């Protein structure tokens, strides 16, 4: 650096026009539906952060209650205590003395003494829980919170991966065109020629199971739509004057692509990504149900719904209702928020879809 210091220029009051994010925020602030759903999403994110930090729902695997304990509002199930079946009378028979034929009889006394020295705690299983319990007596509420963490984590991370792939490839294709563009278009055609779900299955067949695998599968197969849109935007922008001006002052290709054009198309990417999150969360649920997603030692909305199918036949509807409600509220809020973002960032599209 040269040692020339420019003396502080006399402060000319240049009216700074509001940037795209500020104007978008102003528009978003006036959108009541968008704002409310934004708050709901934020509440969910806080819940997820708390769950990830272990403050809530860390003990979701503990079997706190009797199997399939109903929600507190309904009260405990009748006729199931002490293992008696309602309607069947059990006669208590007088104990028969078997001492002379039981070969273990002489040792009962000794065993009873040894057992009394051991410290045993009798856990009292709850008859009801706020939102009921599952087949093993685990708290449905805790499971739903932990499941929210896993499902949203999968959706967001997969969307991030797809966004990065789509953005980089789209930027390269749109900016350079020519051979690079042709090659990437070919890649796009190859990926879109195979129906989505089949592509996911093909990846699942070779990559195996697990949370990270689900993220990888969804990310690697889901980038095509975003790629297409980013490419179109880059083609549009790379000929614009501000980019030519940047070129004239010697900005490198990378700098023009990612420092000049990218911020100007980032709103498109953001909106598209939020749509991807919703789509991936739904995909995770279905993949987990089909046995290709989250493994059984973890919990997600998908695994909860998969368990709920057999419970429903027996009349235990609370796990299904809880998982469905958590998912419906989050996905609705997230979609409405994404719509509001789109309207705020791109007012031309308002109410188009």
């Amino acid at each position: 650096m040269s040692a020339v210091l420019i003396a502080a220029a006399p402060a000319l009051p240049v009216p700074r026009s509001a940037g795209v994010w500020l104007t978008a925020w102003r528009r978003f602030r006036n959108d009541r539906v968008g704002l409310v759903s934004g708050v709901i999403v934020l509440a969910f994110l806080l819940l997820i952060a708390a769950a990830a930090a272990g403050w809530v729902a860390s003990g979701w695997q503990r079997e706190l209650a009797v199997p399939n304990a109903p929600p507190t509002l309904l009260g405990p199930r009748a006729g199931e205590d002490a293992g008696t079946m309602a309607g069947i009378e059990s006669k208590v028979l007088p104990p028969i003395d078997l001492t002379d034929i039981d070969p273990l009889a002489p040792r009962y006394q000794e065993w009873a003494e040894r057992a009394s020295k051991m410290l045993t705690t009798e856990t009292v299983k709850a008859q009801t829980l706020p939102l009921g319990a599952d087949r093993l007596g685990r708290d449905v509420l805790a499971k739903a919170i932990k499941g929210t963490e896993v499902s949203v984590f999968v959706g967001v991370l997969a969307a991030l991966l797809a966004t990065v792939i789509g953005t980089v490839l789209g930027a390269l294709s749109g900016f350079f065109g020519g051979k690079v563009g042709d090659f990437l278009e070919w890649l796009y055609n190859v990926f879109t020629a195979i129906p989505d779900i089949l592509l996911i299955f093909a990846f699942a067949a070779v990559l195996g199971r697990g949370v990270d695998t689900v993220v990888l599968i969804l990310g690697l197969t889901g980038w095509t739509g975003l790629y297409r849109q980013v490419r179109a935007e880059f083609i549009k922008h790379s000929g614009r004057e501000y980019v030519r001006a940047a070129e004239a002052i010697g900005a490198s290709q990378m700098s023009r692509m990612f420092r000049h054009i990218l911020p100007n198309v980032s709103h498109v990417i953001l909106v598209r990504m939020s749509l991807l999150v919703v789509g991936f969360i739904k995909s995770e649920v279905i993949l987990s149900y089909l046995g290709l997603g989250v493994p059984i030692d973890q919990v997600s909305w998908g695994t909860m719904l998969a368990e709920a199918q057999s419970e429903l036949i027996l009349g235990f509807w609370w796990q299904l209702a809880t998982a469905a409600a958590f998912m419906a509220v989050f996905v609705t809020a997230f979609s409405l928020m994404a719509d509001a973002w789109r309207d705020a960032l791109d007012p031309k599209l308002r109410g188009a879809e």
Partner: protein
Amino acid sequence: MLAYVIKRLWQMVPTLLGVVLLVFTLFHFFGSDPSVILAGQNATPEQIAAIRQQLGLDQPAYVQFGIFLKQIVTFDWGRSWATNEQVSHLFATRLPATLTVMLPILILDTVLAVPIALGVAYVRGSLTDRTLMVATTVALSISFLVYIIVGQYVFGFQLGWFPVQGWSDSVATNLVTYAPLPVLLAVMVGVSPQTRLYRSFFLDELGHDYVRTARAKGLTEPTVLFKHVLRNAMIPILTNIGLALPGIFVGSFLIEVFFSIPGLGREVLLAVNRSDYPVIQAVTVYLAMLTMLINLATDLLYKVVDPRVVLR
């Protein structure tokens, strides 16, 4: 026209090669070793070596790719590793069940979504429109899985309107008895996104000048809507149906698994769980071919719908 078709078919070759290459790479370099899968857990090294030789796995990668290409061109994928069934026979026997369920879904989806979308687009911004849009958002946010779990329980188990699940050998029985419940549930889910999409197409058309002109010259509203707007919106609608069409050949995996329908989708899922590579590879490659052919057919249909379209 013929020249166009030939050109398009020629353009499919590199894409198809790409699909084949993708599938080959995926299964060859990332999948687990087929000989280990095939030989089972108690295999001796000799058995594994024998299988490797039989499948050509001891050959270099380009030779294996050649074998793979030959299988595709000759439509001979050999037998399923799990059931020893001819892969082509598997296709022929599973596809009818899939189509029995999926064709009615596609038709009903379209037949219901187009008029609803046209209706709400016409009364844009009204209470009806906004209520319906919120309703579709909520309907969309509930997982398909919840619809079918609850739907099967309520309509099949509680009310007993439909059999809970099942399948027969006769197409007619299937259509009348077993298909209606899955079809009904899938349509309930499918109509929402379709309506939203088609509504946006109609809104786009309704904003054009020709609509104003048509009204100005005194055409009745039904004429404007059905003769002008609907016809102009047909192109995006056709595109959308064209995009959905390849999907009906694999079916909805979820529906087939859930209702135990012996279709292609369930078979593919079974193949994924059994690491039955020939089946997955065959389905993927042929479906990619089918998708491209359907895309071509859609493009040709544009010409029928809109004579101004120039096929280049």
